[in-house]
């Protein structure tokens, strides 16, 4: 089965430093263009947060040769779809179009890489500032439990750590975006030498390479990219935060500092999360939701950033159940695993789940090409599906068992989100 994960590709590095990966899949007449800029909220500084996410908006506002509103229109008229996303470490921009419109997509992407600032105006910034503030209201401020993640990040990572603030930025910073700062941020990070481009789908290698060169090669490379300073990370003692929200059910979040992406320990932590909460038989699900029925749901995951990571467990309490009870049950289950370990059949079940999910993930060209870009950007090798899968399938039970003692016995951040009105006599 693994041969279909062994993808064929071509990789080129243009004279200006732009990395290019070409991947051919002719099953449908579509092509995905996927561009990663190695800039995320970790490249921002306290007081000026939210810039990389702001660009996810400004990059659609037109560039020198593309009038405002036309970026979307060109792609929609061609029958394509497009978007972008921002994480703590990178921003990506992508479009999937019928394969005979590849050149259009490359023209649009290259115009905003090379010539965005020629068309940047105060009006556009003011308009998108409003849109971003509304995005923040809609997705975080007006959303039940919507502030949980920024509370966790800002408590788990100290003030001088680049993961301290939310990717969308603090509202007070968004309100104060200045045109000059925005331009400066673009000049610093959005150069070809800080980007990785994957073109995948129904292509011919030579033609695609020629087209990419035609549109991107003349864009000059930028200055070297400022290094991110990473302070020593250690949560000296556990913290408990209580936050009141417009909700009726209490919710508990436990978060530990762990490891960065592709560290030897991030795949055992992934597997541990699957064994805890990945199915009805997950240890925590079975105990809290199925048997004791004190929680409505429970989930856990290892979040791996480029610089650092965290392991998180989240549980929503049933009406009237105290979060301290939920917490003690969670810790009891973790202790049990620490003492008795996981079972071989649990490990096998998780490995099977992950193996299948790798095959399923090949179905959608856009997400496949994005994963190729992830591997190219973070590992330097686009064809890393098998490597990545084997990090899981080769795991031994003892390694997974050791994760509790190595990480989950350390100090942690504990967040309680409680109803504003004490509806169920809870806490």
């Amino acid at each position, binding site marked *: 089965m693994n041969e279909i994960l062994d993808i064929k590709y071509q990789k080129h590095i243009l004279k200006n430093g732009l990395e290019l990966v070409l991947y051919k899949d002719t099953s449908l007449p579509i092509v995905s263009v996927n561009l990663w800029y190695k800039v995320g909220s970790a490249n921002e500084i306290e007081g000026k947060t939210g810039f990389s996410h702001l660009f996810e908006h400004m990059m659609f506002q037109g560039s020198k040769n593309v009038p405002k509103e036309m970026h979307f229109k060109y792609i929609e*008229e061609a029958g394509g779809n497009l978007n972008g996303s921002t994480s703590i470490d990178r921003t990506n921009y992508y479009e999937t179009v019928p394969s005979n419109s590849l050149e259009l997509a490359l023209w649009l992407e290259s115009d905003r890489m090379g010539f965005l600032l020629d068309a940047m105006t105060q009006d556009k910034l003011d308009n998108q500032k409003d849109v971003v503030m509304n995005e923040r209201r809609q997705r975080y401020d007006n959303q039940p439990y919507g502030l949980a993640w920024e509370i966790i990040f800002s408590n788990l990572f100290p003030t001088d750590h680049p993961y301290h603030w939310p990717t969308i930025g603090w509202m007070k910073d968004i309100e104060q975006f200045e045109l000059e700062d925005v331009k400066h941020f673009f000049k610093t990070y959005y150069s070809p030498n800080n980007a990785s481009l994957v073109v995948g789908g129904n292509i011919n290698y030579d033609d695609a390479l020629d087209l990419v060169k035609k549109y991107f090669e003349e864009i000059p490379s930028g200055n070297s990219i400022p290094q991110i300073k990473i302070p020593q990370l250690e949560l000296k003692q556990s913290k408990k935060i209580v936050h009141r929200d417009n909700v009726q059910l209490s919710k508990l979040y436990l978060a530990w500092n762990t490891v960065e992406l592709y560290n030897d320990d991030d795949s055992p932590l992934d597997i541990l999360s699957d064994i805890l909460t990945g199915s009805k038989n997950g240890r925590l699900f079975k105990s809290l939701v199925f048997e004791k029925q004190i929680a409505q749901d429970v989930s856990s995951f290892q979040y791996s950033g480029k610089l650092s990571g965290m392991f998180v467990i989240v549980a929503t309490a049933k009406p009237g159940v105290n979060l301290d009870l939920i917490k003690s049950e969670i810790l009891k289950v973790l202790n049990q695993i620490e003492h008795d370990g996981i079972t071989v059949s649990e490990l096998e079940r998780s490995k099977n789940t992950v193996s299948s999910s790798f095959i399923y993930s090949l179905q959608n060209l856009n997400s496949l090409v994005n994963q190729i870009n992830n591997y190219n950007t973070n590992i330097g090798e686009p064809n890393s599906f098998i490597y990545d899968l084997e990090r899981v399938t080769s795991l031994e039970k003892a390694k997974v068992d050791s994760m509790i003692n190595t990480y989950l016995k350390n100090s942690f951040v504990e967040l309680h989100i409680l109803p504003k009105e004490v509806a169920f006599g809870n806490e």
Partner: protein
Amino acid sequence: MNRSTAPDSTGKLNFQLPGIQQFTLNNGLNILFVEKNNLPIVNMSLIVNAGSRFDPKNKSGLAYLTSMLIDEGAGDFSALELDNEIESLGSIFGVSTDSDLIYLNMLSISDKFERSLELLSMVYTTPIFSIDDFDREKQKLLTSIIRNYDDPSYIASSNFRNLVFNNSPYANPIIGDSKSVESITNSEVIQFHKNAFTPDNSHLIVVGNISQSQLETLLNKYFSVSTNKRKEDSFLSLSKNEKSSFYFINKDGAAQSEIRIGHLTNNRNDPDYYAKIIMNSILGGQFSSRLNLNLREDKGFTYGISSGFYYNRHLGNFQISTSVQSENSGETINEIEKEINGIKQNISSEEIDFSKSYLIKRFPAMFETYSQISNNLSSLIHYSLDKKYFDNYIQNIESCTKHEIEIAAQQRIIADELIYLIVGDRDKVLPQLRSITNQNIIELDKFGQKVS
């Protein structure tokens, strides 16, 4: 290099629709099948004509609760054992329920297909419905209902649904309300399953890496289930929105207002479907639509606004949805009304060409993943569409005339029948609403009861 003009598209696209095979098992179960071999995957979807519109009076949520319980143990397997069987195969099982249908989905790697199909058959025919599982899942559903009412977007959507589909089986929330779910018993679930989960009331859609002959052999082995007949599907009460009305629900301290505006419309398989979809993509069906360009890209009032025609099997509705900064609630509604008037008065040929191009050229990408193809096939069944629907789709879009599209705007969006619902902070929002409408503003609580 000259960058000043957009490059043209090059060459013709070569796209062939997947061939759809249909056959029926001896017990009456209809099969739709597409062989697709680019990956070793098979997607199965059993769709049962048993959505929430079949909930008996005062038992809203029964179909949904039945769907929650359907995989809590089957055959000789308890809930946890069954889950372990499926997970160990690396297969993914999921259930979803809408107003008309319950969907049982199983995605598997092709060499685990046979066992996955066998387990799907067990789930469909011999669910256990034990009282312990029932009590647990019912409590879970009741808690979900409580939690949903924390979400302003859910409050807006579920109440809007209730106002628009008033007096029809589509009015009730799919997941039910606290009172109705509280009253549901396990024997009602068992009876609901017995009545509805019958071969003549179900379709099985299979898309994947398997030949038709292999599939038929395996279906005869695992799906030769009994031939209970479903009771006749009757759909009696059709409602009509007679006059425009204006509703408000208070959400103290809300940072934004949720806005829903719309009314009932005709059916999915009516002939003006294509005219409506083109017209709507100009009004609010895509990013570059009039509504979004005005309220997001020009005014900055919202992160996004959209409009659409949404269909059930028997009744559809037209709806505009957005979430806007509280301070701009009134002005947003003015702008929406302006756009509604605008689309009724003037649609340009350029806009029509743009929309047709969008709808036609994106067509191949709608057949990319195994589950996308499966969903397309289920829409054929859901709305009783012509077998040649997909073959004729592009032609039907192309041949739509400007006149037909203008008629769709004039006839299918009716200003006098629009129902308005705004969920937001009373102190900030209500005065704005009073200044933009002469209509009586009816205030509801979050459960839809009138506040005096």
